[in-house]
C-alpha cells in the first residue's frame, strides 16, 4: 500500500509537468493565428486553432492541478524520460486536430503531418498549393518548436527541480552553461536570433514576408516544410539557396559548439570532432556528387548549385530540395542515403545517428589500433574535445554509442523491409525510410496522401523513434511498465 | 640555529643529519610512527609524531624558539599550511617549502613562504636543455634555482679542450668560475686554457645554462 501511494504520487508529479508543457503547446497553437494579420480572409479557419488550443489548455490545466495535489517530490533522470515521452505524444496528437477538424486531412494523415512537424522531418501528405496559409504557418511553428525541443522551450522559461532529466531525455547530452535553465535560455536565444536573421536574408533574397518566415523557421529547425510544392527549387535563386545552406548548417550544429564559437573560442571550434567530421563529409561528397551525378544531368551552373544544396540538405537532415531525384543515378541516391544516416550534430535540431556518435566510433577504431600496438600493460585514457574541455571517453560511453548505432541500423532494416512489403522498390524503400528515421524529409515521391496506411504508420514510428533517440522511449516504457506491474502486485 | 623539519621518510633523515652535522639543533614532525622511530634511532633530534600542519604539534616541536621551518611533505597544500602557520602563529622568521606543482611557486611566495623549492622545474629544465648529461658531474641550484652551478668534466672530444676562455666566448649570464686540474684549483682568467680531464664549474642562469654547456662540449 505504501509503495502504491509512492507510485501514485510520482506519476501525479509527472502528469503535473506534462500539464505545464501542454499549456505551452496551447500557446503555440494560438501563435499560428498570427497568419491572420497578413491573410485576414482566412478568419473562418480560426476556430480550427482556437478549439484545439482550448482543449489543450484545459487538459494542461487539469494535469497541472493533479500534479499539485502530489506535493513536492524529487524525480529521477528516468522519470524525466517519461515526462518527455508523454508530452511529445500528447503534443503530436493535439497538434493534428487543426488539420483533422477542418476536414483538410483524415485522422491518419493529420497525425502524419503533425508527427512530421514536431520531429522536424518535413515529409508531407498535404497539398500546399490548396492549403490555407494559416495551416502552413502552423506546420512551420511545429517544426520550430520541435527543433528546439518542447522541454527546452519550457525549461528556458521555468526551471523545475528535475530540469536535467528533461534536458537529457530530449537528447541533449551537452550543456552550454553549468545550469540547465541558463543553458536552455542560451539555446533559445541563439535559435531565435538565427531564425530572425534567416527571415531577413530571405526577404532580401526576394521572398515574400510570409514565405521568408516559414522557410526560416523550417530551415533552422532542419525541418524542411515548404510553402511551395517545388520547395526551395521554386525560387530558383542562388542567393536563397546559399542562405538556406547556411541556415541548415547552423541548425545541424551542436548548440554547445555555437556557444563556443559565439564566444570567440575558434580553437575549441576547430578542435571539435563533429565540426571536423561534417567538414570532411562536405568536402568529400560535394565534389563526388558534382562529378558523378550533377554534371551529366544539369548545366554547369545548375550542377554546382545542386551538388552544394542536396548533400547539405541530407546531412543536416533538413529535407529541402531544389530538384527531383527521379532521374538521379543509384549512386547519387546512395550518397544522400549515407549522409542522411549520419545526420547532424548531437544537441542540435538535426536527426540521424548523429555526427558525434559516428566520430566517436571512428575514433575508437584508431584507439583500438593504438592499443593493439602498445604494450599490454600500457594504460590508455582517451579523450575527445567537447565544448571547451576534454571529455574522457570510458568504455561504457563507447558501448552506449555502439548500441545506439546498432539499434538504429536494426530499426532501419525493419522499416525498409516493411516498405518493401508494401510493394515499393528497394531504392525507394531504402531512401524513404532513411529519410523518415533520420527526420530528414527528402522524398523520392512515394510519401503521399493515398499511400498505404501501413507505410504511413511505419514512417510515423520511424520519425518518432528518430527524434527521441530510442533509448529514452525504451527506458521510459520499461520503467513505466515496471512501476505499473509492481504497484499491481504489491496491492 | 633551531630548525623544524616537517615530512617523512628518507628526505627528513638525510636533511636532519646534514643540519645536525652543521651544528644546528633539529626537531622533526612526521606523521608515520614507523618513520618517527626510525629517525629517532638515527639522529639526535626531537621527533614529534603527528600532523605538522597542526598548530599544537608545531608548538610541541618548539616552533616558538625555531629560526626556520622546512616543510618537505609530498603534498604542496600541507607544506603551505605548515609554513603559513609557523610564520603567522609562531612568527618563525624563515620558512621553506618543497613544491611539486610548478604553478604553485608564485602563489606560495605571495602567501609569505620565504623559500620555495621547485623540484619539478629543476629536473625538467635539465632534461629540456637536451644535454648529454653524462658529462655533468654535479649540479647545484643556488637561490631557489635562479642561479645554477654546474660541474662539468672536460673531455678531449669537447670543443673547448685546448682553448682559452677568450677563444671560447661563453654566452651572457654565464661565468666559468673554477677549474679543478688534478689536485690544484685554478681561478681562470681570459688566457687560461681548458685541458682534457679538467673539471670546470660553471655558474649560470637556468636560461643560459644550455647554451653555455653546448659551447663547452661542442654539441
Amino acid at each position, binding site marked *: 500500500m505504501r509503495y502504491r501511494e509512492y507510485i501514485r504520487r510520482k506519476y501525479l508529479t509527472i502528469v503535473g509537468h506534462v500539464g505545464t508543457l501542454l499549456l505551452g503547446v496551447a500557446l503555440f497553437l494560438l501563435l499560428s493565428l498570427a497568419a491572420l494579420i497578413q491573410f485576414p480572409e482566412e478568419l473562418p479557419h480560426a476556430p480550427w486553432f482556437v478549439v484545439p488550443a482550448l482543449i489543450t489548455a484545459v487538459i494542461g490545466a487539469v494535469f497541472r492541478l493533479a500534479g499539485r495535489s502530489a506535493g513536492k517530490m524529487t524525480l529521477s533522470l528516468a522519470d524525466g524520460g517519461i515526462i518527455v515521452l508523454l508530452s511529445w505524444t500528447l503534443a503530436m496528437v493535439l497538434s493534428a486536430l487543426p488539420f483533422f477538424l477542418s476536414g483538410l486531412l483524415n485522422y491518419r494523415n493529420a497525425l502524419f503531418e503533425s508527427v512530421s512537424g514536431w520531429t522536424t522531418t518535413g515529409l508531407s501528405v498535404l497539398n500546399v498549393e490548396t492549403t490555407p496559409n494559416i495551416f502552413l504557418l502552423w506546420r512551420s511553428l511545429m517544426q520550430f518548436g520541435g527543433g528546439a525541443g518542447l522541454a527546452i522551450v519550457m525549461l528556458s522559461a521555468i526551471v523545475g527541480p528535475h530540469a536535467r532529466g528533461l534536458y537529457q531525455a530530449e537528447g541533449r547530452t551537452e550543456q552550454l552553461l*553549468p545550469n540547465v535553465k541558463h543553458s536552455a535560455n542560451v539555446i533559445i536565444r541563439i535559435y531565435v536570433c538565427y531564425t530572425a536573421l534567416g527571415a531577413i536574408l530571405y526577404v532580401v533574397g526576394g521572398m515574400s514576408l510570409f514565405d521568408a518566415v516559414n522557410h526560416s523557421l523550417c530551415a533552422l529547425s532542419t525541418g524542411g516544410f515548404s510553402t511551395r510544392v517545388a520547395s526551395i527549387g521554386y525560387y530558383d535563386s542562388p542567393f536563397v539557396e546559399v542562405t538556406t545552406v547556411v541556415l541548415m548548417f547552423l541548425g545541424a550544429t551542436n548548440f554547445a559548439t555555437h556557444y563556443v564559437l559565439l564566444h570567440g573560442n575558434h580553437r575549441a571550434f576547430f578542435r571539435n570532432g563533429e565540426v571536423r567530421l561534417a567538414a570532411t563529409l562536405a568536402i568529400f561528397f560535394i565534389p563526388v556528387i558534382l562529378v558523378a551525378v550533377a554534371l551529366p544531368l544539369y548545366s554547369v551552373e545548375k550542377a554546382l548549385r545542386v551538388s552544394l544544396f542536396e548533400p547539405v540538405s541530407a546531412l543536416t537532415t533538413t529535407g529541402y530540395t531544389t530538384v527531383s531525384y527521379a532521374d538521379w543515378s543509384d549512386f547519387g541516391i546512395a550518397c544522400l542515403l549515407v549522409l542522411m544516416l549520419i545526420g547532424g550534430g548531437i544537441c542540435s535540431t538535426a536527426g540521424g545517428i548523429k555526427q558525434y556518435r559516428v566520430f566517436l566510433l571512428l575514433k575508437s577504431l584508431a584507439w583500438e589500433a593504438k592499443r593493439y600496438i602498445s604494450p599490454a600493460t600500457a594504460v590508455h585514457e582517451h579523450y575527445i574535445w567537447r565544448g571547451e*574541455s576534454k571529455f574522457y571517453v570510458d568504455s561504457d560511453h563507447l558501448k552506449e554509442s555502439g548500441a545506439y548505432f546498432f539499434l538504429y541500423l536494426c530499426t532501419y532494416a525493419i522499416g525498409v523491409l516493411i516498405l518493401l512489403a508494401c510493394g515499393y522498390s528497394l531504392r525507394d524503400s531504402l531512401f524513404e525510410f532513411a529519410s523518415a528515421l533520420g527526420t530528414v524529409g527528402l522524398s523520392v515521391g512515394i510519401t503521399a496522401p493515398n499511400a498505404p496506411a501501413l507505410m504511413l504508420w511505419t514512417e510515423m514510428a520511424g520519425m518518432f523513434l528518430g527524434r527521441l533517440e530510442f533509448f529514452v522511449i525504451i527506458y521510459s516504457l520499461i520503467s513505466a511498465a515496471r512501476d505499473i506491474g509492481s504497484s499491481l502486485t504489491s496491492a | 640555529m633551531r630548525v623544524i623539519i616537517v615530512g617523512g621518510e628518507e628526505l627528513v633523515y638525510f636533511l636532519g643529519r646534514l643540519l645536525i652535522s652543521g651544528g644546528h639543533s633539529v626537531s622533526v614532525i612526521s606523521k608515520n610512527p614507523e618513520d618517527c622511530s626510525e629517525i629517532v634511532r638515527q639522529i639526535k633530534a626531537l621527533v614529534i609524531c603527528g600532523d605538522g600542519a597542526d598548530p599544537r604539534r608545531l608548538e610541541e616541536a618548539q616552533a616558538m624558539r625555531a629560526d626556520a621551518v622546512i616543510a618537505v611533505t609530498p603534498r*604542496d*597544500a600541507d607544506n603551505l*599550511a605548515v609554513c603559513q602557520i609557523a610564520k603567522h602563529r609562531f612568527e618563525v622568521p624563515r620558512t621553506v617549502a618543497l613544491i611539486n606543482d610548478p*604553478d604553485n611557486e608564485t602563489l606560495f611566495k*605571495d602567501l609569505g613562504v620565504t623559500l620555495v623549492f621547485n623540484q619539478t622545474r629543476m629536473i625538467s629544465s635539465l632534461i629540456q636543455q637536451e644535454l648529454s648529461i653524462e658529462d655533468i658531474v654535479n649540479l647545484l641550484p643556488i637561490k631557489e634555482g635562479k642561479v645554477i652551478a654546474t660541474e662539468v668534466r672536460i673531455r678531449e672530444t669537447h670543443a673547448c679542450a685546448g682553448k682559452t676562455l677568450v677563444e671560447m666566448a661563453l654566452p651572457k649570464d654565464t661565468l666559468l668560475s673554477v677549474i679543478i686540474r688534478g689536485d690544484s684549483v685554478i681561478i681562470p682568467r681570459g688566457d687560461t686554457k681548458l685541458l682534457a680531464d679538467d673539471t670546470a664549474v660553471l655558474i649560470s642562469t637556468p636560461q643560459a645554462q644550455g647554451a653555455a654547456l653546448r659551447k663547452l662540449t661542442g654539441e
Partner: protein
Amino acid sequence: MFVVIIGCGRLGSRLAIEASKGGMNVVVVDKNKRAFDLLTAEFSGFQVVGDASNQEVLRSAKISDADIVAAVTDNDNVNLMVAQAAKHLFGVGKVLARVTDPLKAEIYAQLGLKVLCPATVAADAIGAEMLK
C-alpha cells in the same frame, strides 16, 4: 551568479544541489569520480574530476570567472590552499573555506580569510540550545 564548489562530499554535494536549484551556475570539483554519485537529479551543473590542489584543474573549472568559491573538501590544508589561490591568484570576490580544526581556523581568520569551522558552528548552536 557562478559558483565553484571544491569537494563533493556530504557538505559539498548539498551545497551544489541547493545552489543549482537556486538558479546559479555551478561547477563541482572532486578528485574522486564516484563522489558525484551524491548529486541528485536536481543538480544541473558541471562536474570536474581532478585534484583541486592542482592549479590546472582549478583553471579547467573556470575558477577565474567565479563569483563565489567554496572549498569544502575533507582536507583542511587543501581547502586553505585552494581558497587562498582563488583569492590571491584568480581574484575571486567571495571565498569560503571549511576548516575542521578550530585552532587552525582561528589562525587563518586572522589572515583575513573567510573560514568556517563546522565544530565551532555546531558547538555554538548546541550551546545556544542548552542555554535556552
